[in-house]
């Protein structure tokens, strides 16, 4: 049967049943209004941004900056209204609405760091109140997002939630970072968390970026931060069991803004600013690795030989202030049974080096329709288009940073063109003639139907489709020094995810005991089409296509399709609304499993106990929940990993042939991660102090390890086998405190502390290189650096070396996020700051290694001179030179080694600072609010790491292992923006 006919039949079945199930209900004919204000208890401050809605979901709105709200078109009669705001207790009250009249209903919310009655959905079957959830769940609210000068969605997540690692990797506009939740649980499969947007699974991986960028894209960043209402993050298998296979890396669920019944509310935001880089490289280098200064007497090598770059810009620097332009507009509103949220935006971000930019724009339309009191539909659709041009960067012989930073030892020279004929004469501007582009189109749409046939029963069906296309092109123009006839390569990737997700639940109350039974099933079909082609040897100049080349080659073409399907059952028992026990089972099948492998079950069990509901509990601690959870989830192998295959090749000048590909393993199954976590959430002193603590312990069993068959047996690719065991454990602590709280001012501080201790317990005896000199080895963190270690680094002596020695982990083992918000004059002036520390890990400074190899690493110049003097017979020349300095700054090639440049990469960065001023209404007539924000990003870095930046890595060398290799550091940005709401 063809897929098309299959879909037609399946769709018809679904629609017929869905329509048949709809129960008619009378529409309300007469309506009135509800109005009022929401204030904080104690301080009495008006609360802006609180959600006020009818409990039956028919209407709702958000409070304005003065805390006031108005709900239109409310059915007459007695209605129940609920007010919800992150950081406050939820309040529910009843009011009688009279036709064509306004009922007044004011609310006072008590601050609480723990919102036990807040509804969450991630990791639960359908939805649940926080008090019922036995696992840890982090949330990031729209308030946090709006205050921070975030560039993209990965910036929203970094530093704001425990257990989350976000590594920026690069300062190339348009590229994406690396995200990990509770470390790396897999050696061979992706450790990226699953990403859901409004219930629709989107492409969660990093994608290839332009050929010369040496970086990757993160499709998550195609969801504009301005559209995000909140984010829920569940981090381990204990919470992700119901997501089954693929979910052991955790789940990030993004909820975009939705419409609210009422008149349209328009928001327009305009922003502008600059990107730049401060000093680049070691402090001792006044030229900033010849990037900050590309002209002048300081352009010398370690022997004092001067050189010149004839193409150095007139400013004397390769760096510039790259302008930033931002525009975003949205409208939300609705009436009757239909609400909407529409938004559109455009960003133009230019890098700190000429030619580097990223431009993206798109729109979103979220619609909700509730034709009957028991049935509602939601359609969420977004499209984002992005075009990025990257600086040739990283471990690339034609790279701009590589060639500029190597000074006189670069690959682009123009002998005799300099002021002094015998001087080494470089010509780096030619490098920028290369054009490395990424063009993406990302379309996400989802249709969700909720049906509550009775007050006790609910069904939710979501159909989702994620379409992502990325075209990377890399052009060496005709006349390029290192490829005179030119070359263009194109990689075209299309990924689609079709998802069908159904969840049902029924609730029974048995006195003090409540039972909620849930069931559901999901099916995900992933298609990945990839074409890579090269055209080279152009006839002449001009803008080339593949067929401009005299020689063209399609180097890769793949069309991959994998289906994962499963179902689950879950029972939650609640006792007196304070103790909740949840047990569930997920069963999955996956088309990539081996033929001998059947369905895979993943069980879960959790308990939540709201101990603060007891009467004897001290009132000063208004909320306290204890929780514990254990659960499993998995990771599937790749398509065809289970089958013995041969790869078609061309040989003998274009004739068809075969070469061995995959050895095959019919017993191949998913790896299973079992996680146990225990913790508590507490709020004390009217929300002045909030604590959320979790200890987790993961064990990945049957871990998929790429085992090598003896190469002398012909099959060279590693074959996945379920033989490994990986451990992860750690602590997560979130402290939230109100240092000062008065009617006109508030000062809050947030502290997130996360640790992660990973260990490869069993790898089936394998020693697994993961690229960039990183390895996974039994008994050590996943992954780690190994190599030649200097045993006496600080001694004044020749280095004593230890071969093949463990040096340290490649990923942070501790992350501390510190944020503070100071609100003055009833929130008219708000200062927000976020700093982050990552530590315990290492990075390899290959810039230092490669530059010293060529005698152009400034911190080594003095040592280089002493070593030369020593070699010339001055026995006292090294009297103050340590073993580490001798090893790193060696001038004899036999004594040089890159392992000496693996260094601790601890850093603390001031991620964001923003100052927001709410303009007086008279200045912006007709506006509900107008906010002026001045902000900065990546303003300071404190680190002892001696490379260019401890956070960057070359993602083309390896997306798992980490190594810095002439990659641009993250940009420093200054931004001014104004946001007006009408």
């Amino acid at each position, binding site marked *: 049967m063809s*897929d098309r006919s*299959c879909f037609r*039949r*399946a*769709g018809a*079945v*679904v629609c017929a*049943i869905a329509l*048949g*199930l709809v129960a008619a209900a009378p529409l309300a004919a007469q309506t009135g209004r509800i109005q009022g204000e929401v204030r904080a208890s104690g301080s009495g401050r008006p609360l802006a941004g609180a959600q006020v809605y009818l409990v039956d979901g028919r209407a709702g709105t958000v409070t304005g900056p003065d805390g006031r709200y108005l709900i239109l078109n409310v059915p007459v009669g007695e209605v129940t209204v609920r007010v919800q705001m992150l950081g406050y207790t939820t309040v529910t009250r009843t009011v009688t609405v009279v036709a064509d009249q306004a009922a007044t209903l004011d609310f006072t919310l008590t601050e609480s760091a723990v919102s036990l009655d807040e509804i969450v959905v991630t990791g639960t079957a359908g939805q649940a109140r926080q008090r019922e959830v036995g696992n840890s769940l982090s949330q990031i609210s729209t308030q946090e997002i709006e205050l921070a000068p975030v560039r993209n969605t990965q910036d929203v997540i970094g530093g704001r939630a425990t257990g989350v690692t976000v590594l920026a990797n690069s300062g190339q506009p348009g590229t994406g970072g690396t995200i990990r939740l509770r470390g790396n649980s897999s050696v061979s499969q992706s450790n990226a968390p699953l990403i859901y947007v409004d219930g629709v699974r989107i492409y969660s991986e990093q994608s290839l970026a332009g050929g010369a960028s040496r970086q990757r894209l993160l499709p998550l960043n195609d969801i504009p931060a301005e559209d995000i209402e909140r984010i829920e993050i569940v981090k381990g298998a204990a919470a992700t069991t119901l997501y089954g296979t693929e979910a052991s890396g955790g789940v990030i669920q993004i909820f975009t803004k939705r419409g609210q019944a009422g008149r349209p509310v328009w928001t327009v935001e305009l922003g502008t600013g600059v990107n730049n880089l401060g000093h680049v490289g070691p402090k001792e280098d006044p030229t900033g690795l010849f990037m900050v200064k590309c002209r002048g007497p300081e352009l010398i090598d370690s022997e004092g030989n001067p050189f010149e770059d004839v193409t150095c810009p007139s400013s004397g620097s390769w760096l510039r202030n790259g302008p930033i332009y931002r525009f975003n507009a949205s409208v939300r509103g609705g009436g009757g049974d239909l609400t909407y949220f529409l938004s559109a935006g455009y960003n133009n971000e230019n890098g700190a080096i000429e030619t580097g930019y990223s431009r993206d724009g798109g729109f979103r339309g979220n619609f909700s329709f509730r034709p009957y009191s028991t049935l509602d539909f939601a359609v969420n659709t977004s499209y984002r288009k992005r075009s990025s041009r990257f600086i040739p960067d990283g471990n690339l*012989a034609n790279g701009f940073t590589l060639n500029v930073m190597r000074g006189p030892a670069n690959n682009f*020279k*123009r*002998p*005799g063109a300099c002021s002094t004929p015998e001087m080494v004469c470089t010509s780096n501007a030619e490098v920028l003639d290369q054009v490395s582009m990424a063009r993406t189109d990302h379309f996400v749409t989802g249709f969700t139907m909720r049906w509550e*046939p009775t007050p006790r*029963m609910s*069904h939710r*069906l979501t159909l989702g489709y994620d379409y992502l296309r990325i075209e990377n092109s890399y052009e060496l123009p005709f006349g390029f020094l290192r*490829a005179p006839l030119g070359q263009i390569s194109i990689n075209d990737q299309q990924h689609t995810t079709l998802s069908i997700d*159904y969840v*049902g639940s029924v609730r029974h109350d048995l006195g003090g005991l409540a039972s909620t039974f849930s069931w*559901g*099933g999901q*099916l995900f079909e992933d298609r990945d089409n990839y074409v890579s082609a090269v055209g080279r040897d152009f006839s002449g100049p001009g803008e080339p296509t593949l067929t401009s080349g005299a*020689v063209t080659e399609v*180097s890769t073409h*793949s069309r991959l399709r*994998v289906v994962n*399907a499963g179902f689950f059952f879950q029972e939650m028992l609640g006792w007196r609304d304070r103790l909740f026990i949840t047990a569930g089972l997920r069963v999955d099948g996956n*088309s990539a499993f081996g033929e001998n492998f059947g369905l895979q079950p993943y069980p879960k069990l959790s308990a939540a106990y709201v101990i603060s509901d007891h009467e004897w509990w001290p009132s000063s601690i208004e909320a306290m929940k204890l929780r514990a959870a254990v659960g499993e989830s998995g990771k599937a192998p790749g*398509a065809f990993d289970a*089958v*013995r*295959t*041969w790869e078609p*090749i*061309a*040989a*003998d*000048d*274009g*004739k068809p*042939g*075969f070469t*061995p*590909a*995959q050895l*095959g393993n019919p017993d191949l199954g998913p790896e299973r991660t079992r996680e146990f976590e225990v913790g508590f959430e507490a709020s004390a002193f009217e929300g002045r102090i909030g604590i959320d603590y979790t200890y987790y312990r993961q064990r990945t069993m049957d871990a998929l390890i790429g*085992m*090598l068959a*003896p*190469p*002398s*047996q*012909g099959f*060279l690719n590693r074959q996945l086998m379920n033989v490994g065991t990986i451990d992860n454990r750690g602590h997560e602590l979130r402290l939230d405190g109100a240092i000062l709280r008065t009617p006109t001012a508030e000062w809050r501080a947030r502290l997130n502390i996360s640790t992660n201790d990973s260990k490869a317990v069993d790898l089936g005896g*394998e020693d697994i290189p993961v690229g960039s000199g990183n390895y996974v080895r039994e008994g050590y963190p996943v992954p780690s650096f190994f190599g030649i270690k200097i045993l006496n680094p600080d001694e004044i002596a020749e280095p004593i070396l230890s071969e093949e020695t463990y040096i340290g982990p490649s990923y942070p083992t501790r992350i501390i996020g510190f944020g503070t918000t100071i609100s003055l004059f009833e929130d008219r002036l708000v200062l927000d700051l976020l700093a982050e520390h990552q530590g315990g890990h290492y990075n390899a400074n290959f810039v230092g290694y490669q530059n010293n190899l*060529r005698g152009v690493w400034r911190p080594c110049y003095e040592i280089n001179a002493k070593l030369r003097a020593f070699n010339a017979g001055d026995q006292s020349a090294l009297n103050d030179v340590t073993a580490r300095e001798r090893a790193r700054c060696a001038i004899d090639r036999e004594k040089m080694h*890159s392992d000496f440049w693996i260094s601790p990469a601890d850093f603390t960065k001031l991620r964001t600072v923003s100052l927001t001023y709410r303009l007086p209404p008279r200045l912006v007539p007709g506006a509900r609010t107008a906010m002026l924000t001045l902000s900065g990003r990546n303003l300071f870095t404190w680190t002892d790491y001696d490379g260019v930046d401890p956070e960057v890595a070359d993602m083309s060398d390896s997306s798992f292992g980490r190594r810095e290799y002439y990659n641009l550091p993250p940009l420093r940005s200054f931004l001014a923006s104004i946001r007006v709401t009408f």
Partner: protein
Amino acid sequence: MRYERRSFVAALAVLLLPAAACSEFTKVTNPGPIQDSDLNNPDVVPALVVGMSGDLSAAIDDMIELTSIAADELAHGGSYTAPGLYYRGIILPEDVNGVWAGAHRARWVAENGILRIREILGEEGYESSAEAARANVLAGYANRLLGENMCYAVIDGGPREDHKVHFSRAEDYFTEGLRLAERVGNATLRYAALAGRASVRAWQGKWDEAAQDAAQVPTNFVYEAIFSENSGRENNNFWIETHVRLEYTVYNTRWANVHGDPRVPWDTLYAPGGGIRNGQDGFTPYFQQKKYPERGSDVPLSKGTEMRVLQAEAALRRGDLTQFTALINEQRGHYGMDPIPQPANEDEAWEVLDFERGAVVWLEVRRFWDLRRWYEEGRNQFLANRDKCIPISRNEMNSNPNLHE
């Protein structure tokens, strides 16, 4: 309650019916890779042999870089770490994983393919198959490549053996290839088998038989590992490393003093505007090899001129300097070079042979073995205090239980 039960059942139907409607839907598809059983088809035999050839070319391509640097044919002038060690005579097991694996894949694919061809075609079809003849010749050359360059032989995950095991296996395959080539009347394969067998017989000390085989190969005969511009996998990557990246230079080798020899073509590379260009390391003067001037340049596996030099060595070992000189000059004449006078004695003749053979097989993955065998005989001592062969790779050591201590 009944309503709830009905809606529960209906919901389950929503869940299950689409899947039931199309079980095909859940199949994984990944067009491209070929399943093993699909190769058991007579029509696939030509592609199997082309695959053997492709894997042998890939193995040769990998190994040129290592052996040319280790054998002083080229010097390291780039930024790769391992070749820097090769240049210093250090060849580590962890640095030769790719070289070891590629060469063994070439051998396994050819040897395993011969068994598969026999099974697919049957004895009659096999005996009349030019592809079978070529498969045997390729298996012979793959074994010779391993025998000449590896310190030890490891066959199909077995224990460590003397590297000369590969020479005896190669001799068997060349003999079988010769027999089949003669049956199908393929002269090229016949010469290729004879030339290959001549070399591996010589390396086993069978110099008279080697000389007899070699004598049957015309001086102008060349049998090559095929490279092409057609696709990246077929490219001569050694050309890319020496013409695009500038990793390996003739500078600082014995051949840097050899000028105008058509067997050792190289030239100084100048930057636009003048001045000698440096290698990828930024400071080593770049003398560029011109033997492989294109991305699709083929690499000789056997040549008639090498046969003359091999015969000359056999003559020298017999003490026949007259024939030695004649054979050397026959080879030189082929390249349009002036004849050399007869060496005054055997020591002088060995020096002549060292240079002449080195020039003839320059950058053909043969010199490392010549230096090794001559070192063991107390002649050329370049390899003193240097690694003399490629060790068993780290990956083979780790994955092969027969090699565990």
